[in-house]
Structure formats: structure tokens, C-alpha cells
């Protein structure tokens, strides 16, 4: 008579409830049975526990397994202790033997099978290919009771127990290959290398775990990030197939899986079904798995049949009972996982503090950044320029597709309180941040920060000098115009702009003298208050100052950049009188002194140029500038040849 005392499961068949290899971490931590290559997506440490009960004649519960696993770069190691992976068979002799002439006894033979521990190693060759192996240790504890007759004055019988223990080591190898994003192939050996110690009693050799060699092939297909299908085949004609569906639950996943299996040694053809409920999160996973066999479980059996059939799997065989198992995985990440990385940083501009507004629109540097993960990542770029901005300045977030490279722009804000007058080499610290509390990567590069009056020579950028000192200009212009209030109130509204510009120019040039750039080697531009305070400047300074004064009272201006002489460039300004061509006679009978420009609405307006270095009076400055513009911009086609450029201030 056979009594199955303890219970557990099958070969390509773990205890998690999902039998495919997927990105869900719990599917691959603790199951050498179908994860032969020991593949894992764990980033650092993981611990797994499975506790469950078997529904035999009475419910027995066990701690099935404890696994500890760790990833070291591309290497992954796991150790599994399996106290619950055991099965014991007890055979009792059918006849009672009189014992010590008192009561009869039944002799027993016990066959205890244990899998005690295992270890696995895998190496990730690249994101699509991983290889590995596992080693598992089994123990057979067999005991047979015999009765020996002792002859003395009388014959009596002694019951003796013969113990016959042996060990079994199994090693298998496997490979995981991901030919496409949604497809994963899992190949491995079954019982490739086995090493066992001989049992003492030759009769017991028939009861050892069968170790017939076979091959394993699994396929895992994930048509969407929620849905996963898997099929595991063994060349010994067993298979297991199933599917899982996981819903997003905030940042976690919740779902179910169902699998069915065919075991060559069990009836019916589909021997059982395994439904499971699953929850997975960043730090832990849970699965509640129910193993339901379709056939009546054998609680008794023939010794002879057992001797012939034996078992090949401790946790899944025809004597196994239905089970309910709870598996918990804990994932501990002691590392800051680097999700993005700098490939390089290019400084686009050395810093000119005066051009502050420009750096809000145009990046000061562009970094090449690679996403190291298999998911889309939002990258927050931060910049600190030593001596300029002590706080981290965040630039716009950039999304980078999985494993892709993208350009990340860094913008800067230079404090208006920055007062450095001399150029200096400083360091710009670039940072990348994703979901971690710390930066994923940082990069340092030298950067030249010019003095506050430095200018890059691009006339277009003089506008920043004009705009920057606007508060001063408003005050200054208003003070001048206030003195001429009566005069301004009496003039025709149409020529108001013209008249105000004339008053301001004539006041502004009082006490001003033309002085050349004080620094021969560098472009140097004064802010309006400096020009007025220093009582002079060159063409850049005077144009900036006059333009700023006009803009401050709402008169539209433009800079005129003359590049006809390559070695000596010149800048003056023109302003919008707001007169229509029909009204132009109000300011001059000489129609070569004004120019018609269409405004943004398509209306023609009269603009007049002013030579700001002509410090005699407004009329003279107008005559000189209009003559220059007419000659170089119009007659010599400077405007279309690019030798003369009109640059709007706003």
C-alpha cells in the first residue's frame, strides 16, 4: 500500500502562476524549472518567498522556497533554498509479522525526495541575448524496514531499519533571445549534466528521480504591454501554455494569468489548469496561484507500479495534490540606476551677459544624451554656470525614446545684477535628471563669460543693450519731453513722433562727444546710462542710446548696419514717424530724405534715418544718414546685396 504524505509540483512549471519570461520581474527570479538560463530583469537585489498549502486528506502548508538574487552589471546570480520541494512515499507491507510474541507489526519502506537548493547564473550579452545555467541539488532519503530472526534460547525477531541515502546534482544551460520587441525565445536543456552518488541497495536505484535528457523550448509573445502569451514545450512530450493580462494601476500593474499543462506522465491529456492573480509594483510583486489537477489524485498505489514508473519531478507528478501558493518578491534597489547619459556637450555661445534675453530663446549649449533604458524617458536638463548662476536652472524637458539618442538644449538666465566687467573663464556644470532623486549624469565644460559691456559684434544683438536699460531710458526721455510739454501739445498729432524724436535727439547730443571704442581688441558697447554718464561713445553706443530713448516713449526704431567697408563697419538708426506717404510733406519737401516701409499690417509708413554720431543737430544727423542710406542701401543695392541691413529692435 502507498500513502503520499507530502506534496508539491512539475518540471517546466514553477510556482508563480506565470510561466513566460517577460519584463514582469517575478516571472524569472525563482523558477529554474522553466527559466533555465536564470534570466532576470532585476536591477539590483531581489528576494522571493513562496508559501502555500496542499489540499491532501488534510491541508498541509509549507514554505516552498526562498530565493536571493543580485545583478552585477551584466551578470545575474541567484541562490534558491527549497525546503518545501519534497515528496515522501511510504509503502507498508500487507502482512503483519508477530513481533516479540506480543503484537504484529507492519514493515515500512519510505522514499523521501528533496530538492534542497540551487544556484543560477546568467550573463546579458546585449539587450536581446542572454545566456546562463543553473545547478540544483537533490537528495534521496530511502529507508526499508526488515525483520531479522535471532536465534538463542528462543527465536525472536528484531526489526531493523536500513537507511539508504544518495545525492543528485543537476546542471542545465539555457539561452534567452529576443529577436523582436514583442517576441522572446527561451531555450534550454533538461538534465544535461547529472551527477549522483550510488545507492547502497541496488533495489533502490529504481526509485531514484528519473533524469532522462530532454530539451526545452519556450516562446513568449507580447502583442501589447498588457497582454502576454507563452508556450513551453519539452521534447519529452510535455507542454504548458497560457496567457496573462495586466492592467495599469497607477504606476503598478494588476491582473491575472491562466495556464494549462500536459504532463506525459499524467492523465488526462490536459492534466491541470493554473489560474493566478497578480500584482506587481516597483518594490514588490505578489502572485496567488492555484494549481488544479483534473484527475483524481492517487492517495494509494502499487509498490510495483511505483517501482516501474518512479517520478521525474518532485513538485509535479501524478501523486501531487491541488495547491494554493502565495509568492512574494521584494526588489531592493540600492543603486541609483542611471537612466540617461551624456555623450557630449557642445557650447554654442560664450556668454555675453548683455545678451541675457537671447539665451532664453537660444540655447547656450546642446548636449547629446542617450536613453539607457527600454522605456521613454523625460529628461530634465539643469545648468549651473559658476559665477553667473548659483542656482540650478532647468531647461525644457526632453522626451527620449527607448535606447535612443537625442539633443538636449540648455538655456541660461544671467542675472541683471551681474557686474563683472572683465572676461573670465568659468565652468558650466550640466546635469541630467529623470526619476531619481539624484542626477543621472553630469558634465563639466569650460565657458568664457565676457564682461557686461562685451558685445559679440553682431549688430542684431545690440537690441539687447537697447532693451536692457529701458527703465533708465523712460525716465530720461520723460524728463526731456516734460520740458517741451507746451510745444508738444500744440503740434499736429501726426508729426508727434517726429517732433519728439527731434527734441530728444537735440537734448541728448548736448555735451556728448564721439569717442572710439576704448578696447581695440574687443567689441565694447555702453548701456544708455553709461553713454550719458560718460558723455560720449562710438556709433554703437550712440545708436543704442538714442534707440533706447525713442523706444522708451513708444517710437519704433531699427538699427541700420552698414557692412560696405569690411574693415570698418558702421551702425546708425532709423525710426518710424508713423506718417503715411501722403503726410510725408509735413516733415520734408525732399522726398529722398525719407523711406517707405510697409508695417506688419501692410500699410506704408514713413521712416527716417538718423546718424547718431553727427552730434551737431537733428537736421544734420538726418541729412547725413538719409544721404548715406540712399547711396549705399538704395543706389548701390546694398540692401539686396546684404551690405546694408535693417534690424528691427523689437
Amino acid at each position, binding site marked *: 500500500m502507498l500513502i503520499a504524505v507530502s506534496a508539491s509540483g512539475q518540471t517546466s512549471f514553477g510556482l508563480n502562476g506565470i510561466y513566460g519570461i517577460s519584463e514582469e520581474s517575478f516571472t524569472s527570479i525563482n523558477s529554474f524549472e522553466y527559466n533555465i538560463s536564470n534570466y532576470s530583469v532585476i536591477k539590483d537585489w531581489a528576494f522571493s518567498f513562496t508559501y502555500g498549502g496542499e489540499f491532501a486528506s488534510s491541508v498541509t502548508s509549507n514554505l516552498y522556497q526562498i530565493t536571493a538574487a543580485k545583478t552585477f552589471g551584466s551578470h545575474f546570480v541567484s541562490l534558491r533554498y527549497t525546503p518545501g520541494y519534497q515528496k515522501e512515499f511510504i509503502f507498508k507491507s500487507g502482512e503483519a509479522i508477530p513481533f516479540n510474541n506480543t503484537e504484529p507489526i507492519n514493515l515500512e519502506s519510505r522514499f523521501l525526495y528533496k530538492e534542497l537548493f540551487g544556484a543560477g547564473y546568467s550573463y546579458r550579452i546585449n539587450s536581446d541575448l542572454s545566456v546562463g545555467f543553473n545547478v540544483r541539488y537533490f537528495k534521496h532519503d530511502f529507508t526499508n524496514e526488515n525483520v531479522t530472526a535471532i536465534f538463542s534460547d528462543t527465536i525472536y525477531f528484531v526489526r531493523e531499519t536500513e537507511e539508504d541515502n544518495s545525492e543528485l546534482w543537476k546542471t542545465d544551460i539555457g539561452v534567452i533571445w529576443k529577436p523582436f520587441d514583442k517576441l522572446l525565445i527561451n531555450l534550454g536543456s533538461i538534465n544535461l549534466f547529472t551527477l549522483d552518488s550510488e545507492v547502497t541497495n541496488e533495489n533502490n536505484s529504481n526509485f531514484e528521480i528519473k533524469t532522462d535528457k530532454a530539451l526545452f523550448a519556450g516562446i513568449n509573445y507580447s502583442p501589447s504591454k498588457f497582454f502576454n502569451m507563452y508556450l513551453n514545450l519539452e521534447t519529452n512530450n510535455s507542454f504548458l501554455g497560457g496567457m496573462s493580462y495586466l492592467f495599469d494601476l497607477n504606476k503598478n500593474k494588476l491582473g491575472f494569468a491562466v495556464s494549462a499543462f500536459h504532463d506525459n506522465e499524467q492523465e488526462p491529456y490536459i492534466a491541470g489548469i493554473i489560474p493566478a492573480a497578480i500584482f506587481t509594483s516597483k518594490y514588490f510583486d505578489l502572485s496567488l496561484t492555484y494549481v488544479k489537477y483534473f484527475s483524481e489524485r492517487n492517495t494509494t498505489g502499487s509498490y510495483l507500479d511505483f517501482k516501474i514508473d518512479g517520478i521525474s519531478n518532485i513538485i509535479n507528478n501524478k501523486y501531487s495534490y491541488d495547491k494554493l501558493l502565495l509568492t512574494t518578491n521584494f526588489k531592493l534597489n540600492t543603486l541609483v540606476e542611471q537612466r540617461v547619459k551624456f555623450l557630449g556637450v557642445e557650447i554654442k555661445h560664450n556668454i555675453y551677459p548683455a545678451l541675457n534675453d537671447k539665451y532664453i530663446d537660444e540655447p547656450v549649449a546642446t548636449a547629446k544624451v542617450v536613453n539607457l533604458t527600454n522605456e521613454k524617458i523625460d529628461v530634465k536638463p539643469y545648468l549651473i554656470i559658476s559665477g553667473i548662476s548659483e542656482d540650478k536652472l532647468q531647461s525644457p524637458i526632453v522626451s527620449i525614446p527607448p535606447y535612443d539618442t537625442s539633443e538636449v538644449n540648455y538655456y541660461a538666465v544671467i542675472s541683471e545684477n551681474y557686474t563683472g566687467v572683465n572676461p573670465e573663464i568659468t565652468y558650466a556644470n550640466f546635469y541630467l535628471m529623470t526619476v531619481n532623486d539624484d542626477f543621472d549624469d553630469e558634465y563639466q565644460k569650460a565657458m568664457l563669460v565676457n564682461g557686461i559691456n562685451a558685445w559679440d559684434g553682431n549688430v542684431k544683438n545690440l537690441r539687447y543693450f537697447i532693451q536692457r536699460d529701458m527703465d533708465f531710458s523712460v525716465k530720461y526721455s520723460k524728463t526731456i*519731453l516734460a520740458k517741451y*510739454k507746451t510745444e*508738444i501739445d500744440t503740434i*499736429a*498729432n*501726426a508729426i*508727434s513722433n517726429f517732433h*519728439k524724436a527731434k527734441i530728444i535727439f537735440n537734448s541728448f547730443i548736448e555735451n556728448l562727444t564721439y569717442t572710439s571704442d576704448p578696447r581695440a581688441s574687443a567689441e565694447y558697447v555702453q548701456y544708455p546710462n553709461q553713454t550719458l554718464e560718460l558723455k560720449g561713445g562710438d556709433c554703437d553706443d550712440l545708436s543704442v542710446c538714442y534707440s533706447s530713448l525713442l523706444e522708451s*516713449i*513708444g*517710437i519704433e526704431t*531699427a538699427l541700420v548696419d552698414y557692412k560696405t567697408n569690411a574693415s570698418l563697419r558702421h551702425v546708425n538708426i532709423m525710426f518710424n514717424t508713423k506718417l503715411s*506717404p*501722403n*503726410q*510725408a*510733406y*509735413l516733415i520734408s*519737401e*525732399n*522726398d*529722398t530724405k*525719407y*523711406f*517707405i*516701409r*510697409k*508695417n*506688419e499690417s501692410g500699410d*506704408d509708413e514713413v521712416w527716417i534715418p538718423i546718424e547718431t554720431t553727427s552730434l551737431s543737430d537733428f*537736421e544734420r544727423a538726418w*541729412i547725413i544718414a*538719409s*544721404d548715406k542710406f*540712399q*547711396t549705399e542701401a*538704395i*543706389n*548701390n*543695392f546694398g*540692401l*539686396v*546685396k*546684404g551690405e546694408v541691413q*535693417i534690424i*528691427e529692435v*523689437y
Partner: protein
Amino acid sequence: MKKYLLTILLFATITYSQTFHAEKVNGNVRIFSSNNTNWEQLKPKMILDKNAVISSDKNSSILIKSDEISFTLRESSAITISDIRKMTLDELVLALAMEDVMNVPQKKGNEKSDNTGVYGDKVNEEILTTIKSNDFGLKRLNGAKQLAENGMKESAIIAAKEVYRKYPETKKDATTRIYFADLLFGSGLYEEAYDEYSEINALTLNTDKKKYVESKIEQITKKLIKRDF
């Protein structure tokens, strides 16, 4: 096509270096020199600076000369000295492109509000009288016509364009506009001529002019279609 031509012509070298003087003056002819603030009487032998404007009254004329050009400005006409020059067709195309470059560029969105309040505004307090400044514009068109009659068609076209920009009322004179549109047509600048004829066609025209302008538009349309294919 216009852009294509412009690209090629950017390398053209154009300079203006002629010096004119007044050879013979009849009647009342005035000059507005570029370095002056008022009109003054033009006298024989005067050197005329390149940006000076000369204007003749009724029954007046002036003969001006440079080393290469001799030009008579007839009565009731005005001209800028720098307009008296022989231009190539390439230079004409360059000059026609100038208008776009001069204009204020279009911005994205309306970022700028009109100034309505600096020191108070007086929008409603007066309606300005715009005097008839057309007279001088018409004189300028006469001057431009004379450029064409003296073989300087390209300069004439540019001068006329400038007049129409600075004296928009003169655009209502269909006869003169047709004259300059014909010059564009004759120069082979069909797209520019088409624009001009189309604008003229929008004016109130008598039957003959209407017929003429429409026939020109039709001719150009056929030419442009043929060219595109």
C-alpha cells in the same frame, strides 16, 4: 523664379560714380541738394550731387551732363540725379527686390501693441489736412518717363515705382501706369508686369484702356503658362 534670378544677380557689381553738372538752364529750375534743408535756384555750371533732386516749372527745362550721359529734363518734371543712369536688366531685377527687403518683417503673432498712451494721445482732436502733394509726384513721373525716352527704361521703371510708393495718389493715373507697365512687359519681366496690369485693371478705366489692359493680362498669362510647361 524671382528668387532664382535674385540669387544669381547678387554678385552683380553695381556702383554709381557719375558726376553731373548743369549745362544749360531755361526758366525756373530748382534743386534740393542732399546736404541742404531747402530748395534753391539751380544755376548753370552747378555740380549736382548724386542724391540731389531737381525740379523744373512750366516752360522751364535743364540740360545736365556727365562724362557719359547728356539728359534734358523738360518742363514740369522732377528727377533725382542718381536715377539718371543706365541699368542692366539684372540691376533692374535687384532694384525691384529692394521693396521687400525694406519692409518691416512679419512677426509670429501680434507681439507688439500700438503706442496709444505716451504723454497722452490726441486721436480725436484733429483731422489732418493732407495737401495735394500729388503735383510733385506727377512731376516725378514726368521725369521718369523722360528717362525711358532717353533709353534708360530700367531706371525709369525704378523711379516710377518709387514715386508710386511715396505719392500713392499718383497711382490713380491709369495712362501713366500703363506706360510703365508696358516698360516692364517690354523688358520681359512678365510676373512684375502682370501684377502691375492687374492693379491697373482694378481702377476705373474707359473701354479702350480696359480692353488693352485685359489683352495684356491675357498675353502674359499665356506666356507664363507656356514657360511653366
